[in-house]
């Protein structure tokens, strides 16, 4: 049987890789994909804890996380398409209109 902390460590590793993608990459598309990876690593934790403590709420939370992720991706890609149409850039550094 796989011990619980293996799953937790996998979640940690995937989370750090996703955070590296968000912080280090400058391409908006890759930043969004890294966000997906972050949410997915959290889902691994939810389901692992739910399984090892015999609780359905882990899986239910994971379902809600997936639903919210789908909504977030749809809106983010809509914003991205509008951004590319108006400013024709994909770099995070070029999108600083809201900076004070």
């Amino acid at each position, binding site marked *: 049987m796989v011990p619980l902390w*293996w799953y937790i460590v996998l979640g940690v590793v995937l989370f750090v890789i996703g955070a590296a993608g968000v912080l280090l990459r400058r391409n908006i598309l890759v930043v969004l994909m890294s966000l997906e990876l972050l949410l997915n690593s959290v*889902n691994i934790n939810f389901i692992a804890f739910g399984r090892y403590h015999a609780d359905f709420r882990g899986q239910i939370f994971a379902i809600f996380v997936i*639903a919210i992720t*789908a909504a977030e991706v749809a809106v983010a890609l809509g914003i*991205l398409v509008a951004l590319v149409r108006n400013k024709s850039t994909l770099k995070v550094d070029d999108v600083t209109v809201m900076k004070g």
Partner: protein
Amino acid sequence: MDQGFFLLFATVSVITALTMVLVRNPVHSALALMACFLQVSAIFVLLEAPLLAVIQIFVYVGAIMVLFLFVIMMIDVREAVLQRFLPGGNLPALVLLVLLGVEMLVLVLWSDRFSVMEPVAMGGGDDVRQLGTALFADYLLPFETASVILLAALVGAIMLARKEQG
């Protein structure tokens, strides 16, 4: 047996995730992330959450990544391929990431809360039925809220991506 499969899926998922972050071309990133999501769904099967594994494949691989590929197809990524990978001045971010990873690993390995070896036996084999009952009975309000959020996102995405009239 289980451990071997877990190690296989975990290794492949970590490698594909690293590929996703390190590769220059966004199309290759999207494909690597797709492979990573497939591995994660295999891990969900190992965790005896078959419904979540199927939802993972349908929603992430089938819908979200295809959406990403459509957007990549619509916009020109050739300029993005050429840009420098790691611009200077992100040393603080690297330090922060290393600190974050080390802190989480130390906390996980130190604590004895995570050393549960055997999963508690679930009641009966009707896992999906119980999950559905719980989702539609106890969690009905969050479920409806999620559907409203999805509807709002649908309308918002259409409004955002539409061409301006006149």
